[in-house]
């Protein structure tokens, strides 16, 4: 096979000197593989096989668990630090949890690469993560459909809740707390970056992703929440 562009999402030690890795690849989506010998002290691949570094990989094996054969780095890793790093871990955790192994994922690889580049800049973190989440939802055919549950168009003057099973919105009347139809219609036009909608798009992608990641909460999100909670306490 020709080397596939890839990023390491997660690596955990396996046996003495090997590692089990989750990678996202350009054409084959999420691949799980054994990387033999990478945990050996002084192994050259050990330093190369790091998250956020653009890799070229080949592997063998027909089953769900492949064996990595060759690995090269092209450029050095994106230098993520601080909060950007936690956002990067969130992106990695999200993809490892939500993406089934072996499903080709279209644009997701390119958007992932684009996202982690942008995580170095604080102002672009939220919007790039939203873009990644939406691309992930589209790749899994799980993105929200901006219609009411009976397929009628959204009403700008009423409020809605998201129904994950039908991926549509149920009206709950104008008085109840919920998402207003006007903002949802803006999102429907693809204005995910529009100012004032950041909170809504975050909540909506989270609601749409919830069925895909299962019961266990995302640990990197918890970590970020604990830090921001602490920051608020510190200020108070």
């Amino acid at each position, binding site marked *: 096979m020709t080397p596939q562009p890839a990023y390491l*999402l997660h690596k955990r030690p396996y046996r003495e000197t090997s590692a089990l890795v989750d990678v996202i690849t350009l054409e084959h989506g999420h691949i799980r593989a054994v990387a033999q010998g990478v945990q050996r002290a002084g192994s050259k691949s050990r330093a190369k096989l*790091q998250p956020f570094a653009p890799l070229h990989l080949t592997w063998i094996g027909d089953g769900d668990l492949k064996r990595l054969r060759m690995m090269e780095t092209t450029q050095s*890793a994106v*230098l993520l630090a*601080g*909060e950007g*790093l936690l956002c990067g871990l969130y992106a990695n955790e999200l993809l490892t949890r939500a993406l089934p192994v072996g499903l080709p994922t279209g644009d997701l690889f390119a958007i992932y690469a684009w996202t982690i580049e942008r995580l170095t800049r604080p102002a672009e973190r939220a919007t790039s993560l939203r873009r990644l989440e939406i691309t992930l939802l589209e790749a899994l055919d799980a993105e929200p459909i901006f219609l009411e549950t009976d397929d009628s168009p959204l009403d700008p003057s009423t409020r809605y809740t998201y129904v994950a099973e039908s991926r549509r919105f149920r009206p709950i009347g104008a008085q109840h707390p919920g998402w207003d139809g006007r903002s949802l219609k803006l999102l429907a036009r693809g204005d995910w970056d529009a100012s004032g909608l950041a909170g809504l798009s975050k909540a909506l992608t989270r609601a749409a992703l919830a069925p895909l990641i299962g019961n266990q909460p995302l640990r990197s999100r918890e*970590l970020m929440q604990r830090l921001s909670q602490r920051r608020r306490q510190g200020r108070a």
Partner: protein
Amino acid sequence: MSFSPLVEQLLESLRVLPGVGPKTAQRMALHLLERERDGGRRLSQALTEAIERVGYCERCRTLTEEIQCGVCQDPRRDSALLCVVESPADMLAIEQAGGYRGQYFVLHGHLSPLDGIGPDDIGLDQLEARLSRETVSEIILATNPTVEGEATAHYIAEHLVGREARLSRLAYGVPMGGELEYVDGGTLSRAFQGRQPFSSE
């Protein structure tokens, strides 16, 4: 043919050691039984005692059979300097490198959200309690320069915002005797960013 139950049990037990497979376990067991019974006795005594008595130092959490380890008890060490490391092996490496005369705190791991290892698993409460008791002027975050190590350093730093202590992180650099041509790009670019003023004194 298989060995008698006791010998088999010994083989099985030896295989808990890292790097020991069936063949190596057999070599070790036969060596102890045939040529080194005294050594074997010492080994089993040392093992039993260590497993029974060695725990964590109450101050720095490194391995020790005392309540406080040698470093923590040493009055000549500078208690205003605190170095946070991931493992007792890291602590030993810094000690052997020499030059550091402060105290330590061992996390026994790093934050790794994807493995489910969170702040509660690396003793941060204990670190905070210690910082409330003692006056520390500098905290050196010497976690590994990996993604998880960086995340851990960041989390600890954010957690300690508002305290008096100055925070520092180990520098990235080109290894001694290394050649630039063969240094990986990430290390080289960080070493470049962290370059030092040149002095020929």
